[in-house]
C-alpha cells in the first residue's frame, strides 16, 4: 500500500468535472485506489464516492493505492490534484 497527501487548489473545489477526471484517471491503473477526507474513505474509481467527499478548496486528501502499479497511480493522481485538474480557469 502506498499513500500520499494532496491539497485541493481549485477555487470551486473538487466538483463534478474534476471528480470525473479523477476517477477516469484512477481507472487507468490496475491497483485499487482510495481517496480519503476527514476520516471518510471512498473508492477512488467511483465517481459517486469521490463526489460525496465534497472536497472544497484547501481540503487535505489522502490518496492511497494497493496493487502492482500503486506508486505510479498515487503519484500521478496527486499530480492531477496539484495541477488543479488541468483547469487553469478555475485556479
Amino acid at each position: 500500500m502506498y499513500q500520499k497527501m494532496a491539497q485541493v487548489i481549485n477555487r470551486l473545489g473538487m466538483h463534478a468535472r474534476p471528480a470525473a477526471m479523477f476517477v477516469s484517471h484512477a481507472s487507468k491503473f490496475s491497483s485499487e485506489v482510495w481517496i480519503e477526507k476527514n476520516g471518510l474513505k471512498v473508492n477512488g474509481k467511483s465517481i459517486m464516492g469521490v463526489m460525496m467527499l465534497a472536497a472544497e478548496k484547501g481540503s487535505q486528501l489522502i490518496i492511497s493505492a494497493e496493487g502492482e502499479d500503486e506508486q505510479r497511480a498515487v503519484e500521478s493522481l496527486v499530480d492531477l490534484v496539484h495541477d488543479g485538474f488541468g483547469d487553469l480557469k478555475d485556479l
Partner: protein
Amino acid sequence: MPQLTVEKLYKERKDFFDLTLLNSEKGLKKKLVNAEIHRPGLALTGFFERFPNRRTQVLGQTEITYVSQWSPETLRERTEKLFSQNIPLMIISKGITPPIEFLAIADKYETAVFSSRLSTSELTTRLAAYLDIIFAPSITRHGTLVDVYGVGLLYTGKSGIGKSEVALDLIERGHRLVADDVIRITRKSADLVVGTGSELLGHHMEIRGIGIIDVEKLFGIRGIRIQKRIEVEVHLSHWSEDQEYERLGAEDRYTTILGVPIPLVDIPISPGKNITVISEVIAMNHMLKVYGENTAAEFSKRLAERIHRQSMTREYLESDYE
C-alpha cells in the same frame, strides 16, 4: 470515534428528555464519549473506587432525598468530591431540584446539571436509546445495497464489475435500492447491522456509459428505501479458472461486518449469466433458511437415504441368492 457535546444533546433533545438547565451554560461545552448511563448512588456515600466518570450521571428521588439530609459540611465535601471526578453531565429525574450549594459546586467544575420531568426509568430508557444510536459503531463500505423481497443484499466487488447495473436491473423488476457506492453501515445490536446511503448522494447512481441517474425520479418511491438490515453479502468477481466456487451450498460461508457474521455468497460474473435472477434466488434461499429450510442440506440427506436404501436392497438380494 463519535462525540457528542452536552450542548448538542440539550439543544436537539430538550423536549424529548424534558430538560431544564439548572446551573450556568459553562458546562455545555463538555463532551460525552460513550453511550453508558450511571446512577452514582454509591459515589454519594463517598465510595469512588472504579467510579465510571465518563458516563452520563442520573440521579433520582432516592438519591436527592439522601443528599438533602446531609449537614452543610458533608454536602460541600461530598459534592466537591463528586464533581471533581470530571463527569460530563448530571440529570436529575422527576423534576426535582437539588440544594443550591450542589448546583454551585457543579458550576465550579463546569458541569451542567439538568432537571428532567420524566420518571427515572423513562429517562434512562430514552437516554439509552438516544445515546446508543449516536455511539453505535459504524463504517463506510464500497458497494451497493438493495432490498430484494425484503432481504438486504449487499453487493461488493471491484469498481466497474457491474454492481450498479445489477441494482438497476433489480429495481426494474420491482426491488428497492437503499444506497449505491458508499454504504454507511451501523451496528444496531449484537447481531444486527443496518446500511444506509449518504444524504448528499441520496438515491443517485452512476451507470457506466450513461452517467449519473436519479433512481427516485426515474422509478418513483417504490424503487427506493432509506435503510435496510444487511442480511447477505454478495461478492461479485470475474470468473476465474483457478478459483473454486460453491457447488453444494450445504455449509454457510460467512464474512463479518462490524463483528456481526453475515452469510457470504461469491458469484463469478461471466457473459450470459443473469445475476438478477441469481440475486432473487439468493434472497429467497436466505428466507428459506431463516424459516428453517436448508435446501442443500435436505437434498444431501435425501441422497444419503437413497444410497442407504439401495445398499439395503442389494444386501437383501445378495443374501437371497442361492
